């Protein structure tokens, strides 16, 4: 399994993330803009014209993006500690932001299920938050779920109780399995691809560890930063680091955790990926060094 990657946007001055196909174009985020620029932004690559345009300014550290089945765009505004909704008129709105009565942490990645509930990872981010911060972080780092995003006072449920550094997440097509990347930067922490059964009562069952990433005397082997599913339900994941270990690459895991293939990106470390184009057959990959790649040639494609 391999893709032929072509650089279609960038290189920009800072890491890219949040690739999200909007039906006709590929949205992605530039998280850290240079000083005096317009404070982070969302860009949009249009494969029909090959052009990349600014989609939204002043997004202030929005990491993951997700589009709901009804066409609503959401983003994880990391250091503002909230999931926000981007409306077509240019406005942006904060979602419910308290779990167990407290402000949640810094959201990283998200997905919207068919009931329009927002599942998101809520790690403790390495970047300092917008100051002054009046609320301490919650004493855990979990997958959380906003039950009714249209309601500003929606309950936010804590879904995982065994995560310490949740990063990427995605749902299987039948929404009966939640895939989570636990991606600790600590040597003693875990870096695992996990599959949690979504139970009928909408809680999560005990997870299966599909893959794990280790460490050595040089340091940790970075785990999965971003992932999506292909048409066959396989997990396409961006993992690995340049410093040591197997190296940065795209992995394709079967739902059971078998490695079906790996693929290198031409430059940098892949940060996140999403399928796009009319047939959802093209894999878009963002990188740590500000590049957006468009990968074609592999047979598998996304279901959503």
């Amino acid at each position, binding site marked *: 399994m391999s893709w032929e990657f072509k650089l279609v946007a960038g290189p920009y001055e800072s890491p890219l993330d949040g690739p999200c196909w909007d039906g006709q174009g590929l949205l992605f985020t530039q998280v850290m803009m240079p000083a005096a620029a317009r404070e982070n932004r969302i860009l949009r690559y249009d494969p029909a014209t090959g052009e990349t345009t600014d989609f939204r300014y002043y997004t202030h550290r929005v990491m993951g993006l997700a589009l709901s089945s009804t066409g609503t765009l959401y983003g994880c505004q990391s250091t503002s500690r909230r999931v926000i909704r981007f409306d077509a008129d240019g406005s942006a709105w904060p979602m419910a*932001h308290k779990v167990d009565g407290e402000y949640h942490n810094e959201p990283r990645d998200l997905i919207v299920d068919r009931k329009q509930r927002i599942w998101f990872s809520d790690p403790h981010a390495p970047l300092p938050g917008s100051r002054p911060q009046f609320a301490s972080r919650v004493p855990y780092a979990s997958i959380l779920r906003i039950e009714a995003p249209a309601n500003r006072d929606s309950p936010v449920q804590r879904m995982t109780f065994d995560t310490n550094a949740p990063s990427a997440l995605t749902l299987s097509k039948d929404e009966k399995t939640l895939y989570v990347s636990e991606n600790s930067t600590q040597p003693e922490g875990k870096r695992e691809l996990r599959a949690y059964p979504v139970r009928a009562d909408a809680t999560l069952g005990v997870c299966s560890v599909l893959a794990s990433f280790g460490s050595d005397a040089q340091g940790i082997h970075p785990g999965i930063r971003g992932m999506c599913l292909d048409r066959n339900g396989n997990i396409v994941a961006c993992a690995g680091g340049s410093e040591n270990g197997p190296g940065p690459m795209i992995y394709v895991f079967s739902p059971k955790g078998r490695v079906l293939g790996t693929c290198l990106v031409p430059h940098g470390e892949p940060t996140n990926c999403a399928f796009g184009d009319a047939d959802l057959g093209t894999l878009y990959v963002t990188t740590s060094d500000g590049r957006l790649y468009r990968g074609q040639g592999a047979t598998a494609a996304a279901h959503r």
Partner: protein
Amino acid sequence: MIAEAFQPAFWDLVAKEVSISRVSTGYVFTEGIMWHSQKRYLVWTDIIGDKILKWTPGVGTSLLMGPAGHPDGTFIDRQGRLVVAGWGSRNVWRLEDDGSTTVLATHFEGVKLNTPNDIVVKSDDSIYFTDPSNGIRHPGHQDGDIQKYLDYEGVYRLDPATRKLTLLVKGGVNPNGLCFSPDESLLYINSQRLGCIHVYDVKPDGTIANERLFAELVGTDPGGPDGMKCDVHGNVWCTGPGGVWAVDPKGNALGRIRVPEHTANFTWGGDDMKTMFFATRKTIYAATLNTAGIPLP
């Protein structure tokens, strides 16, 4: 000792043995503190608690309004009404005597304001306010639209008759507190991020000119330029590291009053206008000074 002199002249303003007492506590982030001279009460905002409170000597504290759009700075106009920098509501508004509210400004040239932070009313009823954007980014400060639209953080003058806004300062960095000199010939504007106060000449048409650096308030203690007011002698008092600093009209820092909590704003009050009330994170404190503030309205 809570008073700390940098220059001996500070002891003309504050007694060495000055002490501080607690007025009211139990808030999240108090701001916008003002003394209503006619009605003889203290008013302040709790930005995150999302309310406006009132304290009457001998009576105590009561809720004046809440929720209140996460209000920040306030001022009292000549009619005795509270005008409010709507930090979370992204506007400038006025609380009327009957308890209703009047929105005075929401946009500049059709573009939504950032997060109005602090506000003063000149004796001709024109309203001056700062509009930094950091309120948009803080969790819990906003319930509505959190998109930033303006490419700058401005300082504005609102014309009392037409309610038209004039952009006075466009290139500012995080403008925060502002106040006039007693004769209204000067306007002081501070920047929390830069840790300094700039001063401008006020022109007859109400616009300002001749920006120059007035003072830098530098230190390792928590706090920085935020709330700012002149005393009757024209000394500029401004929150800074460790509490509230006094700066003489030439820009020399004279000393500071150390406040037990991070202080965002303050006001003079009481019948002789010599009690300074401090708005900190959780608590309102008071201390009696030798120098008086300018009564309002």
